[in-house]
């Protein structure tokens, strides 16, 4: 992470990690703060514009399962915090 312009660690007003069970939204982008996580999520279809819905929450509230692009993906809340959810219109 040497490229200064890339360090745009946004303080997302709403991240996927803060969504409750059953909530849905549209992805605004994935933070570059964790490059490995970003690349993984992008490859799995979590890109700007992807519609997501929180399907289930594990015991103790973490990890969560989301539905995106017609399949289910599970991730930890700490990972989901890197995914920005656009404010609803």
């Amino acid at each position, binding site marked *: 992470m*040497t*490229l200064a*312009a*890339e360090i745009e660690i946004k303080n997302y007003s709403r991240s996927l990690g803060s969504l409750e069970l059953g909530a849905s939204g549209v992805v605004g*982008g*994935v933070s*570059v703060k964790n*490059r*490995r*996580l*970003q*690349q*993984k*999520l*992008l*490859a*799995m*279809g979590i*890109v*700007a*514009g*992807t519609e997501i819905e929180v*399907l*289930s*929450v*594990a*015991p*103790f509230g*973490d*990890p969560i*399962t989301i539905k995106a*692009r*017609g*399949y*289910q*993906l*599970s*991730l*930890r809340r700490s*990972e989901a915090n890197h995914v920005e959810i656009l404010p609803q219109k």
Partner: protein
Amino acid sequence: MAANSIRSAANGQAAEESKTRRAALAGNPNCGKTTIFNALTGLRYKVANYPGVTVEKKSGTLNINSDMRVELTDLPGIYSFAGNSYDEKIASEALLGQIEGESKPELVVCVIDAANLERNLYLATQLIDLGMPLILALNMMDVAEERGISIKKEILSRLLDVPVLSLVGSKKEGIEQLRLEIGSMLAKPSLSSRALAWVGTEEAPLIASAREIGAAAADSKVLSPEEQTVLGLELLSDSRGTADSSPLIKEIESAREGLLASGIDASSREATARYKYINDIVRKTVFVDSSNRKFVSDKIDAIVTHKIWGSAIFLLIMATIFQVIFLWAKAPMDLINNSFASLGDYIGSLLPQGKLKSLVVDGIIAGVGSVVVFIPQIGLLFFFLSLLEDSGYLSRAAFLMDRVMRKVGLQGRSFIPLLSSFACAIPGIMSTRTIPSFADRLTTILIAPLMSCSARLPVYTLLIAACIPSSYIFGFVSLQGITLLSMYLLGVAGAAIVAWILKLSILRGEPALFVMEMPVLRLPSPILAVRESLDRILLFLKSAGTMILACSVILWALAAYPTDSVKESYAGKIGAAMEPAIKPLGFNWEIGVGILASFAAREVFISALATVYNLESSDDASTSVLNALKNRMNEGTFGIPTAISLMVFYVFCCQCMSTLAICRRETGSWRWPIFMFVYMTGMAYGASLAAYRLAIHFGL
């Protein structure tokens, strides 16, 4: 590297002359690739490791016709051509023909989960960009149809300009057509004209940069211009694989800055544009019957991932499998033990008394027996694990257990391998392959033998029966039961501490990603499960079998030379030499010999003790040893502190050559099994010492 590539290209030509062609199966994890691979190759495949790494390589032969045979490789399941996991690296190197001794595949069959076309097309379009002949195999069409998904494969084929076939791998539907298509594609290869079709005018600068970077990065590697572009795109989005100081990094960084100035974020633009392109294709080819059906599998899924019901079902499934492995494996294991004992007796009766007879009976036959005896547990465990994985439940289990495992720095995927290790660490260690992060996988392997396995149980029960009073605390809690439970808990606690320390010290690093696909729940295939467990058994016999046999012959020799009398033998002398070291633990030379011999397998401790105590050979070693121990208790030569110390020693020690052999195979070097042996022995010594001192302190 260049020389190798040229050599492998020459190999490829030689292979072509002998009419053996090369093709590879690629695809996302959970797309049913293995089922298709098995159906195409039948029983003619073998499992090996890629050179130097612990990623498994499956290859088999596919006969097209009398003139053409195809060597088919099943690549590791990957979501993207780029990426830094072991599986992704190996798969991309294999596709580019950069693995030593292996030529580049002439054709790639990309297997696609039809119910999940959108995400699966990500890899498929990357493969088209690479400019290699490609066939798309839409698998699990039955599941897709069940979910009301219909795919216009003619349109898909036209849009992507590649042949598209539909299959149901589990029912062998479409396999024959795929075989024929592979044949005709190899006979007359054609390339898709849709390489880089996702690139719009806005992405033109990205591609221009990618070409430059790719050409610079290709260096001495033999890469086509298409491959260089793909490599360039990969480096622009993520260059962590490259050393930080190289001039290439500087070039990549300045390219990224330039792109950013023209409004392109190099880290995400390719993925975003590619998915946009895929969205367009999916809109034109996939039609979903939107009659509001709730699918059975979704309902089941809602229950099995539910906070409360999910946990209850999880506990029930785990307890059942665990019980079944213990109970079902016991009968065949006893049968194997008895058969080898009778075989030894029979062959022994044919041979003259002497060293040869002793070598054959106590060395070789007993050694082979100690290898074969693992088969029931490995077979059963992998049968059930395969059912769990195939059904999609394995990822639900990892999902449910992640929070708990995270407490010690591990993750949900480590849970089942560790649970399996309570039956036997060998299948437990072998099943860590489902953990993608190497650090997490290695930690799991290293702590797996701390789970008290079924071979320790006879040692615990013997010592408890001999030395722990059969009294009750508070009138209903059995002291013996509590002692046994404590040993299991002690192992778990030790494992948690070791995992925590490992993740803070030598295996420290970026925390592993958890992100995991949850495949649709479906009925698993028992045939696949049988095949999987046979594969694992063969792998165990091949890789660990010879070593275990050699060890058992060495152990035999130590006991048989220079004389048969235990005290005079090398084993006895080593035991005597060890005595000063083990005296602080409350052990004498006899126990030392028992511990030494139990390196073959922990339960051997009992029969070794029977030999050392010079007991009349009776049918049941454990009854006679039990009586001998009770006598020694009465004489005061064996006390409760020694018994407790010995049990604690067995909780932590690594007296199991098979565990070390399989650890070597799964980690690919001797470094980790040696580390495992040293740390476990050290831990056993320290814990025993503490237990012995405490027991004496409390006047036991």
